[in-house]
């Protein structure tokens, strides 16, 4: 550990890479506009166990199309209009794997999509650690607690996403109720007013006028059809 002290930024990053070098886990939340498609790529070596998990956080019916292709273009996973899914696979070939999220079926709703792409295992705490070396009881207890806490954090993330979804729906509902009540109050008041200049005629309101127009058109249609026949 001596050589770490007083090292330059570049070297420090190099050490971080050695620690990360084992595997990568990418977790991102991005906005997918309507009629848009977003693809992500990753180079994976053969035999690596990978997991792709995604969840739609906000937008429309909370669904998105997802597709995962291997380096040869073969579709490994394809789902349409899914809200949440998790797909695990072992890389059978070396190369660039591609996964895409599509919102092309939607005409005007933007979607916010979260995904978590885990490639391989997480890096061990000590880069020189060999899988074969025996760990003391304390150390293996620490390792199992670490794994358990990782799954707690994972559950927390999914809970947070579901809560964000519920909250966004509730806020939408709140705004809609407000607009609806104001709009309906306005319509009711206007409809039951007599039109300008006709206040002397009782019972004459916009509502009455619209009913009259409707009846007129219906009668015209009824009179029209026997004449044609």
């Amino acid at each position, binding site marked *: *550990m001596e050589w*770490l*002290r007083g090292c330059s930024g570049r070297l*420090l*990053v190099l*050490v*971080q*890479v*050695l*620690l990360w*070098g084992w595997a*990568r886990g*990418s*977790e*991102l*939340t*991005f*906005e997918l506009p309507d009629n848009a498609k977003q*693809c*992500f*790529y*990753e*180079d994976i070596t053969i035999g690596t166990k990978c997991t792709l998990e995604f969840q739609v956080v906000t937008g429309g019916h909370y669904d998105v199309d997802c597709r995962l292709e291997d380096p040869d273009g073969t579709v490994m996973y394809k789902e349409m209009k899914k809200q949440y899914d998790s797909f695990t696979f072992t890389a059978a070939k070396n190369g660039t794997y591609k996964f895409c999220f599509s919102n092309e079926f939607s005409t005007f709703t933007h979607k*916010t999509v979260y995904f978590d*792409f885990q490639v391989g295992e997480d890096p061990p*705490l000590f*880069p020189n650690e060999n899988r074969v070396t025996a760990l*003391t009881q*304390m*150390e293996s207890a*620490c*390792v199992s*607690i*670490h794994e358990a*806490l*990782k799954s*707690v*954090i994972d559950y*927390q993330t999914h809970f*947070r996403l579901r*809560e*964000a979804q*519920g*909250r966004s729906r*509730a*806020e939408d*509902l*709140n705004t809609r*109720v*407000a607009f*609806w*009540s104001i709009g*309906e*109050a306005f319509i*009711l*008041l206007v409809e*039951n007013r007599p039109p300008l200049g006709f206040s002397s005629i*009782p*019972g004459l*309101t916009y509502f009455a006028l619209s009913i009259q127009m409707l009846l007129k058109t219906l009668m015209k249609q009824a009179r029209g059809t026997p004449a044609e026949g």
Partner: protein
Amino acid sequence: METLLNLVSALYFHIGETEKKCFIEEIPDETMIIGNYRTQLYDKQKEEYLPATQGLGMFVEVKDPDEKVILSRQYGSEGRFTFTSHTPGEHQICLHSNSSKFSLFAGGMLRVHLDIQVGEHTNNYAEIAAKDKLTELQLRVRQLVEQVDQIQKEQNYQRYREERFRQTSESTNQRVLWWSIVQTLILVAIGFWQMRHLKSFFEAKKLV
């Protein structure tokens, strides 16, 4: 040398010239985020992606939940940005290229390798071990402490969010209740007014 090439050889995506790509991170307060990116430009002659030229950089902009910009900087073709959240909520990290020379892209796309680490994952344990002179076991326990810390922060944030959610739901409930009462009153008032108007009309016409 190989490890340097593997630097930020994480997930990548393509970005257009004027395109702005934004990522959202919903985090509790006092959480650190480290983002690493690397760009590559498509070379038409060699028909492959090569590391971008020196002139091409990326502009990184980070906004906090109140839409206030907390980081707005230009980095080179390879960069690393760090920030710590001071308010809990949705932070937005936006990247776009600073290319003003349109010929540079040549109608192609820029390949951006991106890696964002949040909270406990930002800790450099090797550095912590060296600084605090921890044994292996102590370092492992330290990692567990950091993880539990993150869980606790997230739970506090969850409590605050749940309260907001509850307030929104209660407000909707109130509005629906208020509206149904007002609607009934409006309808009764209108009916009453119309009856009165008709009555006065018929009385005037001496039909009643």
